[in-house]
């Protein structure tokens, strides 16, 4: 039964969850990703989020479902990709990830990864040291997701980051995106 369900939710439908704590800009990152995929790459997309008091301080998450077909159920069912910027988020959502799904973690924040088969990058630390602000860790991680999965085009993502970045922070965000591309490329080599 499990394999059959997988076929329906499988090849074409791609489910991403960006998770961490409130204030890390994960909802904005989800919106950026969805806007790039939907309005520029021209695929179907549905973006949902955890909404409520926890969006301001506690755990926070944004889900993005991508498909070339019409998206029936808009929420994530079994994740193809999980980004976890905190240990808590990783522990909470790892069980939603498919067996062959991709796990990307902040290697400094998630000290006990649930599996060795994951990509680890010190997103927050890199954002601080390379760009000068921890706030852009969300965009760095978007860059790595783009480079590692190809689920969104670089051109679309770049355009949306430029458009959606808070005014005055465009340059920093674009640099963060480049950084994300770069660190992922190094891993792929």
């Amino acid at each position, binding site marked *: *039964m499990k394999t*059959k*369900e997988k*076929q*329906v939710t499988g090849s074409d439908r791609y489910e991403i969850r960006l998770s961490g704590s409130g204030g890390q800009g994960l909802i904005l990152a989800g*919106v950026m990703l*969805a*806007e790039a995929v*939907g*309005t520029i790459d021209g695929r*179907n*997309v*549905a*973006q*949902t*989020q955890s*909404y*409520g*008091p926890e969006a301001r301080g506690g755990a926070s998450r944004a889900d993005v479902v991508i498909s070339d077909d019409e*998206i*029936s*159920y*808009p*929420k994530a*069912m079994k994740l193809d990709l999980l980004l976890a910027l905190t240990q808590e988020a990783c522990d909470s959502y790892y069980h939603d990830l498919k067996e062959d799904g991709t796990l990307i973690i902040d290697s400094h924040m998630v000290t006990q990864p649930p599996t060795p088969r994951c990509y680890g990058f010190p997103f927050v630390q890199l954002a601080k040291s390379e760009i000068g602000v921890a706030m852009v860790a969300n965009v760095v991680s978007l860059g790595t997701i783009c480079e590692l999965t190809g689920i969104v085009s670089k051109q679309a993502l770049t355009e949306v980051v430029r458009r959606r970045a808070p005014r005055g922070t465009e340059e920093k965000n674009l640099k963060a995106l480049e950084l994300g591309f770069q660190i992922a490329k190094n891993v792929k080599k």
Partner: protein
Amino acid sequence: MSNQVKLLQGNEACVEGAVLAGVRFFAGYPITPSTEIAEGMARRLPRIGGRFIQMEDEIASMAAIIGASCAGSKSMTATSGPGFSLMQENLGYAYITETPCVVVDVQRGGPSTGLPTKISQSDTMQAAYGTHGDYYAIVLAPSSVEESLHLTVKAVNYSEMYRTPVIVLLDEVLGHMREKVVIPALDEIEVQERRRPAVPPDWYKHYAITATGVSAMASFGEGYRFNVTGLTHDELGFPTAVPREIKAMLDKLKDKVVKNADAIAEFESTEMDDDPKVAILSYGIVSRAAKQAVAMAREQRLKVGAIRPKTIWPLSESKVRDLLKPVRQLIVAELNQGQLINMVKQCIDRNHTELIPLQKYDGELITPSEILHKIKEVKHHAN
């Protein structure tokens, strides 16, 4: 003009739809999860010659949009459960005075303050029967962000065509989720205007009995000088206690909706072509889970279909019977303790179709696997 493609929230799509349909007056009061509609209107309306006002409460918001409509504006408000409850008395005033206006209710859990940030469909019955007295509502319920735009346009149109309030039911998930929306150009959508009087002021009857049940409507300031009252009134709009006139007014409120039910009621069917004996009935965002469940079931060679009313009320009896012809078991999936199923009961032949409830009311959206599980259970018992 090329169409714009935007990533929008359901609430934002409502704003786009309202503006396209010609809504130029919005009065509202902040309430989660509907606030983005008021915020969008506050930004948009002053830029296009429209008017936005934040009132002191939802009672006043409802009052203000009715007043504005009497003065000739297409008007709208948006709220959620607690605010919708406060609006009910004046909503009744809009029904009895046959004043066009649109109310968007972005549903959250109730009763009372309930679950401000969680999904529910527990205002279903309130949307159709919320205020006191005999009246007939028109209630539309989109299931996607794009449809939130189009059904808001339709709601404004129906309110103008039938001279009645129209309710749009969204929910917390649909209101906040983002999807791609193609914003239509103005010439690509149908926009309806209220019928204006063709007679001189002396002959004008604000509530004239007509063949269609809908009277022409003048606005304040145009020379007609009519009376509008929440008291039961005659054709001219003056209070009446004459039994014949009382009945005529109440029949008019009923007929203009009920007699047009076939034109108003719309359904979407999924996988119903091969006459499945089992089907799922659901509305709004829940129907998206149902569609997914049907796809999963079909993969497993389970013959099952899905039906989605886009119009919660009126439910056209003939259309429902037609759709349910092959269906012996109808799973009614909803996010409450059985409100839609109660409404459906009234218009089906229960000797022919058995109604099976699937109700979730824990603040979470129903999942495709939960529906699939129910399908299997039903199929198993049937065999």
